[in-house]
């Protein structure tokens, strides 16, 4: 005779067997799960990436950069550098050159309407001219060497061959790296000495409404030390220059902790686009300061401008100077011998 306890044991055992029987198909399915075959798949991983993302993992090499396995953003950067940048640069720089030639053909050289007086007034002191040419000189070399790195392979390399061109580009890169610092110094000094005369005011609106007298002969809207056009150039140089310096700083020191490949791709893009726009703007500035306007170059050349030129372009500034007691002077060699 079996005790109640043994009966319970028998039932329990039967239940366990029955339960095991019912779940066994599920167990068999679990055995079909093959952890080896459920591996990460390249296509899935690449498809899951968002723009700018990288496929990366863990590396045992003590160099975090090497943990990036595939970075599709490189191809976007290539497309920017090979297709978009030449387009932006071409339109900006060649477009500006074309516009300036057209302007010259239509408007001609802007003359001093009342003729040269032979009397001059000091427009820019030595420090002004030093800061201007420090910045401008650096800018010209930076611009040429920068354009050379971006477009020299298309434009210059076919002329000299790869060896000579590579030497030129290497020296250009050295110049670009080192002249960045005096350029930044020039920017800072320029801001300090000229910002007080470059604050926009109501008079600038009137100047802009009159088109600055650029498009109509004999029109000379009054201006103080700097007219609205010059103020625009000043702020383009300051804001553009700071942006170029910040972006360039990252490119100059590629091993800074903040400079991963994504950051560097971003900064080169900013640096390149701003650079071609900056060059285009400075072409217009250089044109109107030299070929485009009679008497304008003297301001940054000798620093002494003709009084009539000053009265036409900076009437209020001339009054201010006179009020300060800085009288126009007749230069010793200005009078003709006859």
């Amino acid at each position, binding site marked *: 005779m079996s005790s109640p306890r043994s009966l319970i044991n028998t039932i329990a055992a039967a239940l366990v067997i029955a339960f095991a029987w019912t779940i066994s198909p599920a167990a068999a399915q679990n055995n079909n799960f093959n952890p080896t075959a*459920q591996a*990460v*798949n390249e296509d899935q991983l690449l498809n899951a990436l968002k723009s700018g993302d990288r496929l990366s993992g*863990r590396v045992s090499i003590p160099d975090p950069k090497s943990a990036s396995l595939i970075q599709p953003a490189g191809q976007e*950067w290539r497309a920017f550098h090979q297709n978009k940048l030449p387009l932006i640069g071409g339109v900006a720089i060649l477009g500006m050159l074309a516009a300036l030639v057209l302007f010259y053909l239509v408007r001609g050289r802007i003359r001093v309407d009342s003729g040269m007086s032979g009397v001059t007034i000091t427009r820019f002191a030595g420090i002004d001219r030093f800061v201007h040419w420090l910045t401008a000189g650096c800018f010209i070399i930076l611009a040429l060497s920068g354009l050379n790195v971006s477009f020299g392979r298309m434009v210059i390399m076919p002329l000299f061959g790869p060896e000579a061109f590579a030497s030129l580009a290497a020296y250009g*890169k050295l110049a670009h790296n080192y002249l960045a610092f005096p350029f930044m110094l020039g920017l800072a000094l320029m801001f300090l000495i000229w910002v007080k005369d470059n604050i926009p005011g109501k008079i600038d609106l009137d100047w802009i409404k009159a088109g600055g007298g650029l498009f109509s002969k004999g029109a000379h809207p009054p201006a103080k030390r700097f007219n609205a056009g010059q103020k625009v150039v000043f702020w383009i140089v300051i804001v553009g220059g700071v942006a170029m310096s910040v972006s360039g700083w990252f490119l100059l020191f590629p091993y800074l902790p903040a400079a991963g490949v994504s950051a560097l791709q971003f900064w080169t893009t900013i640096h390149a686009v701003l650079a071609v726009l900056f060059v285009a703007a400075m072409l217009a500035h250089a044109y109107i300061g030299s070929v485009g306007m009679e008497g304008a170059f003297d301001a940054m050349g000798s620093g002494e401008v003709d009084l009539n030129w000053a009265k036409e372009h900076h009437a209020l500034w001339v009054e201010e100077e006179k009020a300060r007691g800085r009288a126009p002077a007749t230069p010793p060699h200005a009078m003709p011998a006859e």
Partner: protein
Amino acid sequence: MARVKFLCDADRCIECNACVTACKNEHDVPWGINRRRVVTINDGKPGERSVSMACMHCTDAPCAAVCPVSCFYTTADAVVLHSKDLCIGCGYCFYACPFGAPQYPKVGNFGSRGKMDKCTYCAGGPEADLTSAEYVKYGSNRLAEGKLPICAEMCSTKSLLAGDGDIIASIYKERVMKRGYGSGAWGWKTAYKETIAS
């Protein structure tokens, strides 16, 4: 001439890093530069895989496209090589390369980039084959000796394959058929605009 390629069968890679070490040793690669590396994806998770990656010697190579001084060239075997005499260390190839292959010694201005260094598929550089000038700049030239890249040749699990692209693709295809799975020919779509059907 064959179109040579690299293929890393991630289902075989055991992350021993022997390819990394062998490469450094073979070419006397400078400190801080690794022409080849092993990256482990999903480390410690189900489906973890390790992939040995170096320059893939791309078809229509991005580095060659963006180089400002055109220092890259492709050999008859489709190996992408470069001239350190022409390189100016600008970093453009590093920005464009999908595989992070180009690296630079820190010898430029302000400790920035020197001449770029990358995997040569053990094929040296533009100097005359097997000269010391070539070895100093680019490392040894095993291809000129009739040998394949050291990384693939000594791979203990034959995960990393090098050689004629068609042959290594067929080897990989056969493996995938036999074992019934494959995590893909890593980088092939990016480098060669093709993939191995599995």
